[in-house]
């Protein structure tokens, strides 16, 4: 790794130049190349049409979440308490939690079926980061929160796919 200040050839991965002590941190980070890879590594998720969050409270009955999902044609609702995101309820959760139980969706509370403390994104996270989270966690949608924990939207796998598709075609 060549020091940009004095030109000394350092061992890869060192933090300061051995000759002039110039800070070398970050120099060996991979630099995005061209095209799609560059876009995914640099574009923040707010380039996507962020879907406004549809929310319920932890004490709402599950039936309300199901009604909202049908009405808005969405695959998840966010569970919010005191303005902060505390859980998520998805189609997947609905299948796994409700099928084969005799629970009444009019009385069963959200807090009993939601996925608490879900993985979240922040507005300036990159598309590559979102993609990676979705791939390793097998998520199809991720809530986006502000630094104070307030949810501002949901990013869906389809929105990312559409963005990639549009980029590749142009």
């Amino acid at each position, binding site marked *: 790794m060549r020091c940009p200040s004095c030109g000394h050839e350092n061992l890869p991965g060192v*933090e300061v130049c051995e000759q002039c002590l110039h800070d070398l*941190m*970050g120099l060996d*980070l*991979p630099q*995005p*190349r*061209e*095209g*799609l*890879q560059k876009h*995914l*590594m*640099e574009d*923040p998720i707010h380039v996507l049409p962020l879907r406004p969050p549809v929310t319920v409270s932890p004490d709402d009955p*599950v*039936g309300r979440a*199901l*009604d909202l*999902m*049908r009405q808005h044609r969405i*695959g998840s609702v966010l569970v919010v308490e005191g303005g902060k995101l505390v859980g998520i309820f998805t*189609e*997947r959760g*609905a*299948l*796994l939690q*409700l*099928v*084969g139980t005799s629970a009444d*969706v*009019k009385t069963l509370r959200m807090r009993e079926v939601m996925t608490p403390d879900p993985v979240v*994104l*922040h507005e*300036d*996270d*990159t598309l*590559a*980061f979102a*993609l*990676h989270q*979705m*791939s*390793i966690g*097998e998520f*199809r949608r991720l809530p986006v929160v502000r630094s104070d924990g307030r949810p501002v939207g949901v990013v869906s*796998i*389809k929105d*990312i*796919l*559409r963005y*990639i*598709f549009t*980029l*590749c075609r142009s």
Partner: protein
Amino acid sequence: MSVEDALREAKIRELPLSPPVCVAMGTQVGEVLELMKRRRAHCVLICEGEHLRGIFTERDVVNKILGLPVDLRAPIESFMTPSPVTLHPEDRVWEAMRLMDEGGYRHIPLVVEDGRVAGVISVQDIINFLAEHFPTEVFNLPPRSRQVFEAPEGA
């Protein structure tokens, strides 16, 4: 190879797809739900013999069944989407992506020449494919592109 070239060139059969969950026409919807839960399946294909007749997905579970006055002994064909759009395993991943984008599908069944079911490709499979075609280090970057660490990791 760039990610976009990989996307355009790869064929669907090159992806590590999970085998589809299939049920016969006439299966009770309650049984199908139990099967989906047990196999953790996102969708099931409804077949007559080896031929595809319909698809039933997680979205249908929420839209048509849960919390609604439904007789769980009713046959699955009353709830499935009949004759879904299909692809061939030799088709390109790109084509699956295009169909998913245009039709809003998350699952596309795969059938071969004689109409036999050969599998199903999901939006998740495409995301996994994309993730794999990035160098690992790309995904180990900080979540925010301009994020700078004040001190070395672990310090």
